[in-house]
């Protein structure tokens, strides 16, 4: 790469840390003068400097603008991360969440003063229960993993209420890591169920694993191989016959929204990621929102607080006199900002549009699979749902790995697909285009993927190993970073002391 004297490279600006731009006396705010009152802090006044940097507003705006320019984003291109559902984020939703009546409402205001907020939560809950065909929904979980936690806690509370102390949760090999981590957090023993040769849960293995100790199975459907679990009704029967509950991970609901209701599949609890199917922005790692829908036997044990219709208005139940609810999971009652965005998204699409969302998402993924299947090995035949899975079989003897393909995609202007997940195939490449990509955009992506495979087969391994060549950064050494972690900036003099 050509070095420049400034460190900038064309429009990609080198940008130091905030702390390296500090100058005493600079500020980005103008505050009124203090009166100079005597503090009522009981002698606990802060003594030393905090160490925060001083910068002016134009410097701050430039700093964060330059940082933003080093990120890939849906706004700038197709983002094929499988199981992440990186779809367009409508800006109407951003406008709605900033309405002062929502943004400036406090969670502990008297309930009669926030009827509009409660109406919104109640309306969204109605959309969610109708789309899923489930009788109830707990709105409070902060993200998908938090929703899993709420779901498993609800299940455990229901089991405890019937005097049933089951200790095992079954999780397929192909599950997201959050599933086993959540089960462990609820003090369950995790047992893994293998996949069959068609990339689905092995129902015979499930039957063999069933016992009176099994509290639940956690199954993602469509699963992380991008396939619909076609024996799901039998799976539900196996679980219910043994007195266990069926937890559905709804991370991939985008494939079936408006076309299939989890309530018709025998599911007892399932979280929805509003930041996936319902388009609330990912924001570089959150915030999310993970409402969990519940079947009739589980509804009484749902977490606090929850909203109920009450005469002409709405009421939020914050304390449970029945003693059934398993309790509270967080500071307040839910990711209201995500609720507003998700409802705006749902109302914009309507029942008819949401159905088209699922269909176009599935169409796009099958189209990618059809276009790439001669070049990239498909471990499980389609049709797939909203994402398609390839393994690294086609890269055999090229010296190029799944990781190298991913880094090559960066040079070609695409964010990499999900790689090395799910764990059930070797060198997994999981591609989810989403329904908001046009045919032209999907075609360009497919052309690029085909080109990369040709290049790998042509013996260009060295180019791949060095990729990315054109990104703002070359390949970063994650191993060295973990060996001697530097997790905060420190002034030069302190760095000296630490060494």
């Amino acid at each position: 790469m050509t070095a420049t004297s400034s460190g900038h490279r064309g429009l990609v600006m080198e940008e130091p840390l905030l702390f390296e731009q500090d100058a005493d006396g600079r500020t980005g705010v103008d505050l009124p003068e203090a009166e100079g009152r005597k503090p009522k802090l009981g002698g606990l006044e802060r003594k030393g400097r905090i160490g925060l940097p001083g910068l002016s507003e134009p410097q701050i705006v430039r700093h964060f603008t330059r940082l933003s320019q080093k990120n890939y984003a849906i706004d700038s291109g197709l983002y094929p991360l499988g199981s992440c559902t990186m779809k367009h984020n409508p800006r109407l939703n951003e406008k709605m969440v900033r309405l002062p009546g929502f943004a400036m409402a406090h969670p502990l205001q008297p309930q009669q003063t926030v009827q509009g907020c409660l109406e919104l939560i109640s309306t969204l809950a109605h959309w969610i229960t109708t789309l899923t065909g489930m009788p109830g929904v707990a709105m409070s979980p902060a993200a998908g993993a938090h929703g899993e936690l709420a779901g498993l806690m609800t299940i455990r509370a229901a089991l405890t209420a019937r005097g049933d102390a089951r200790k095992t949760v079954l999780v397929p090999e192909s599950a997201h890591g959050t599933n086993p981590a959540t089960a462990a957090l609820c003090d369950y023993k995790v047992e893994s169920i293998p996949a069959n040769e068609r990339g689905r849960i092995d129902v015979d293995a499930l039957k063999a694993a069933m016992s009176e100790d099994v509290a639940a199975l956690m199954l993602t459907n469509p699963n992380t191989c991008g396939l619909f679990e076609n024996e799901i009704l039998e799976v539900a029967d196996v679980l219910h016959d043994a007195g266990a509950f069926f937890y559905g991970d709804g991370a991939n609901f985008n494939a079936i929204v408006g076309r299939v209701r989890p309530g018709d599949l025998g599911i007892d609890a399932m979280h929805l990621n509003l930041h996936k199917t319902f388009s609330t922005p990912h924001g570089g790692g959150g915030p999310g929102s993970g409402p969990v829908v519940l079947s009739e036997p589980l509804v009484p044990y749902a977490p606090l607080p929850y909203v109920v219709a009450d005469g002409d208005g709405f009421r939020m139940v914050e304390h449970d006199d029945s003693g059934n609810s398993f309790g509270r999971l967080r500071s307040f009652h839910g990711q209201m900002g995500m609720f507003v965005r998700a409802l705006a998204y749902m109302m914009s699409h309507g029942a008819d549009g949401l159905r088209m969302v699922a269909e176009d998402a599935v169409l796009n993924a099958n189209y990618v699979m059809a276009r790439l299947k001669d070049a990239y090995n498909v471990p499980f035949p389609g049709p797939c749902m909203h994402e398609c899975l390839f393994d690294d079989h086609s890269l055999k003897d090229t010296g190029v790995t799944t990781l190298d393909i991913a880094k090559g995609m960066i040079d070609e202007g695409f964010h990499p697909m999900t790689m090395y997940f799910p764990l059930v195939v070797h060198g997994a490449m999981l591609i989810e285009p989403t329904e908001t990509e046009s045919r032209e955009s999907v075609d360009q992506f497919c052309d690029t993927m085909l080109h990369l495979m040709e290049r790998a087969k042509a013996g260009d391994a060295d180019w791949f190993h060095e990729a990315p060549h054109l990104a703002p950064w070359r390949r970063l050494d994650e191993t060295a970073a973990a060996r001697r972690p530097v997790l905060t900036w420190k002034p030069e003099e302190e760095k000296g002391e630490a060494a």
Partner: protein
Amino acid sequence: MRYLPHTDADRQAMLGVIGAKSIDDLYVDVPRSALLDAPVDLPHHQGELAVERALSAMADKNLSGANAPFFVGCGAYRHHVPASVDALIQRGEFLTSYTPYQPEVSQGTLQMLFEFQTMVAMLTGMDVANASMYDGASGTAEAVLMANRVTRRHRAVLSGGLHPHYRETVETYARYGDFEIASQTLDPDGVQDLAELIDENTSCVVVQTPDVMGRLRDLTALAEACHAAGALLVAVVTEVVSLGLVTPPGEMGADIVVCEGQSLGNPMGFGGPYVGLFATRDKYVRQMPGRLVGEAHDSEDRRGWVLTLSTREQHIRREKATSNICTNSGLCALAFTIHLSLLGEAGFTGLAGLNHEAAQRAAERLAAIDGVAVLNETYFNEFTLRLPRPAEEVVDALAERGVLGGVPLSRLAPDNPALSDLMVVAATEMTTDEELDVLAGALQEVLS
């Protein structure tokens, strides 16, 4: 449908490439009985204007900090957010990017999170901070789980001054995580001793300062008592702006500090999304929950940042992970970081001072009303009033007059009758003299 690019011709052509006759061919694996043939019973699609009208009508039904004299706190606070914060977090490259797993194309988010971690460590007086939790209460529960791992003990002591929602959240995690809780009952008349509750099984003591009534607490002696017994001190701060004026928990011996970060950059938004701050000592870093960003170098030796120490996390360690957290509060952490960098050292300490003075003015004014007493000897920007009537009735009567007067403690802890006549009142840099006049007048009227 404005968000869906395909034309019918596109769909047909693509089905042709796939070799399918219709979309239904792609759903062959769905049991026929479960495949819906028609849209579900919900309204059909609408244009922007119609959606905007419907949602605005809901928003307009709320009284809020935007249109009413406002004194509500207890874990969420009304602060002024500079205009550039919201402009910058709406840049699509921040708003519409994923978790930065691919560092070469995510340096913007990664560098920002490194700056966030550094600032959180500075504010709390700790060595290291993670890249955020969901909020203060869930962060507190994670802190207790972490203390259990570090000490290999299974009993947490919770201070009576801990926000009841935080206590309930920890209790939920305890019930299912198989550890014990010793909770103090909130005593409105004084700061309670906690050291006597520590025993040889205690993993941590959780204490909030300022507490839910607004009272400050010196943690130094308590930290010593914890350490002498082999337990950790978990300090909780629900109003992060207080750290501009008050000695940080890290300087008083805390081992883990959890804060609610909403006050900086993030609207009250009826309860979320917020951002949990989580900081600790270097020696415990491998037991931390959540994501961490660390410095790295690329193959040309340029400095950059990556997600690091991920062998603690669920996507690698599965059931052995330190937490199940995945998506956290990235965009809220960005808003926090931008707001705090605009403030800088002088602005942040200045803002804290303005908050403290606003609360003093409010306390003096309200204490002058007949029958009203301020219980706090110390406070930052909120304090507790004892009223001559049940606080919940008073707050409702104030709301009828269009005033959002505070939080009745009975709402948070209805099972504690000693709290029924107590109301927590918050004031910030946004509180005007006019608002205070209206509150004082209305309170006088309600109480007479």
